[in-house]
């Protein structure tokens, strides 16, 4: 019997000896590009950041691909949104990667939503209301004030994981805090004219932006969260919009634009296709600037 099991064990041993790594920088696995950008700003040269999704992917629905398991295996820190946004793939990565550092409860398991309040917490959990998140709406990265709170918490986490470089993290945080505060003031001044504007959205992914810029959502194209717009529902929305004209149609570039285009054609309401997250060649700052300028462009 022992001979039978010796061979597989030997093969395993061989593989475990052959693969050995040593890294100086903290390996960060970010679930979404906005957190990748934030960690990069706060961690500077002390971190090596990987983003599991791009701005063109729906973070609810990517697959637990082998490449992601490989990345999670080597991560020292996991930075995600939480609030069930990644429930369709992250738990599997955590179970499959065999990496203790990034498990729930460990310092390396950072969920942004744990550090801020969430809007739209459902009173009743029933799937006939669509794909609802029990904790509330998870798309918190569209509120710069919440980003600030998350950045502060993330700095503490970085210092905890890598105490040798905590001075660097503190310095990065201080300078981020200053620049970001100033940026917020600027953005809020620039966007005065957007207050009270009526918007129609594809998916209710913009709650925090609405809350921040005081936009008024008058209609949602998805009849229920995560359920694609039906023609019956669209007709209803169209009728409502004829009564109560909106200022713009908002959708994220990763989403299907068919319903939005159809409605735009019928109503002549301008369409704004906003990137839902930071793209690979820009920073969190640039992304916010881009979103605001796109919204302001429509206004004029």
């Amino acid at each position: 019997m022992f001979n039978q099991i010796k061979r597989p064990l030997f093969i395993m041993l061989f593989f475990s000896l052959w693969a050995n790594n040593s890294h100086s920088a903290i390996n960060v696995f970010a679930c979404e590009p906005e957190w990748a950008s934030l960690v990069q700003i706060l961690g500077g040269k002390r971190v090596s950041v990987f983003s599991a999704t791009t701005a063109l992917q729906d973070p609810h629905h990517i697959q637990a691909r082998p490449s992601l398991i490989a990345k999670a295996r080597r991560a020292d820190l996991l930075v995600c949104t939480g609030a069930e946004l990644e429930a369709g793939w992250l738990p599997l990565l955590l179970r499959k990667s065999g990496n203790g550092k990034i498990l729930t409860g460990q310092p390396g398991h950072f969920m942004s939503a744990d550090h801020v309040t969430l809007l739209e917490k459902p009173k009743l959990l029933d799937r006939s209301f669509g794909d609802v998140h029990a904790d509330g709406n998870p798309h918190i990265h569209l509120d710069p004030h919440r980003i600030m709170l998350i950045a502060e918490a993330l700095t503490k986490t970085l210092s905890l994981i890598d105490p040798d470089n905590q001075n660097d993290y503190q310095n990065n945080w201080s300078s981020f805090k200053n620049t970001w505060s100033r940026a917020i003031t600027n953005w809020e001044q620039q966007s005065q004219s957007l207050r009270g504007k009526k918007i129609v959205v594809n998916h209710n992914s913009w709650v925090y932006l609405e809350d921040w810029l005081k936009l008024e959502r008058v209609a949602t194209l998805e009849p229920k969260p995560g359920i694609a717009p039906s023609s019956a529902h669209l007709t209803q929305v169209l009728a409502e919009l004829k009564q109560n004209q909106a200022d713009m149609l908002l959708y994220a570039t990763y989403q299907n634009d068919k319903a939005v285009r159809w409605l735009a054609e019928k109503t002549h309401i301008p369409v704004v296709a906003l990137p839902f997250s930071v793209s690979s060649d820009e920073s969190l700052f640039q992304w916010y600037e881009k979103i605001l300028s796109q919204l302001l462009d429509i206004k004029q």
Partner: protein
Amino acid sequence: MRKKFLAAATIAAISNINPVWAISDIEALRKQVEALKKDYEQRINALENRLKQSEEKSQLAQQKVEQVAEKVEKTKTTSRTGQRNFNPEISLILDGRYADFNNDPDAYKLPGFTLGNEAGLGEAGFSIGHTELAISANADDKFYGKATLAIHDHEGETETDLEEAYIQTLGLGHGLTLKAGRFYSAIGYLNEQHEHLWDFADAPLIYRGLFGDQLRDDGLQVTYVAPTDTFMQVGTELFRGDRFPGGGNHDGVGAWTVFANIGGDIGIEHSWQLGLNHWRENDVDDRTSDGHSHGGAATETASFSGDSKISSLDLVYKWAPNGNPTSRNFKLQFEYFDRREDGSITMLNSGPPEEVSTYDGQQDGWYAQAIYQFKPHWRTGIRYDRLSSNNNGSDEDVLAEAGLDDEGHTPERYSAMLEWLPSEYSRIRLQYNRDDSYEDADNQIFLQYTLSLGSHGAHQF
């Protein structure tokens, strides 16, 4: 010191040489310096003002942030995690179908293969499939546990089957994970997936022929993920080996497997995984397959004893535009299995004397399938199955009796399906098979629903 002295000496020397020039020059220089000083003072003042302003601004912003922070602090709820809130996660799968066959489903056979376990076509007409109740949770920070109960009808009786019941380590570190209990073996791509996750209503023919649809057993699994950019995983399983396609009563390790998977992405849109697997049981004792009776006599059942080994290769490729599978995606899947067996076949309840033959079996088969989600909520797919066998023994008649003679036929099957998925949690499927498993070709149609209630776990790649 020396430098200062040198500089002073030089200045003295220069002024000594041109005293008149020096005086007017100094006057001009002084004026220039005065002007510069004034200019800079103005600039510095301006800068100071601006700095002050921006400091005030940032203070303002800071105040706002603090206000938000205060607000947040006041309304802060209890801490959340990234996982589902339900603890434990409970899910119930409802599955039912309407099936139509040209041939009698009870006459189904796969020449060259003995059918065991749950292999077969199921019933014609309305029937419910596996109703699965799964409960899982992280027990603590060290272990995850899962149990799946399957409730299904078998020959007119409702049976409850403990499909899976296992524990798994969490974050053991170094890429190691241990699993113990009853679970689906990691060999093969489809084997680990529950039936309701399959893209067709029935198992590939090779899974039906070798495993009686799926291989699961009681035992221990160890996997190791290498710390490399390309996904590399190796693993081994030690099994009791009593279950089909093993057999007997083992008090140690009856069967074992080794497997290796590599995988990765090509750009942002393509991903792939390749697997190599091996299963072995050296002491299969009395593995019985489905019996068939001869006009009311006791059922004659083929029983195999000997050693058995299965090797397999699987390849999966997936595509999604921009790596975003929500509206459109494509999947290509291929698996090949080869089984070699050496031992004897006994026909139970035959004779006396019992019919016995030596057995040298060689069976292989593959399937390939392509699934395309062409728009949100709609998927379509095709599949092709093909098997072959070359089984020999001392008594060809006994092998033929056992169903191990290929009857000069190559089993194959063509399938096509169309699915409508109103949401992530429900699916209606229409499937057509042209089934050439045995010499009488069969046309099969399935209309199937699958619903998932409660917690909806993450899907494997």
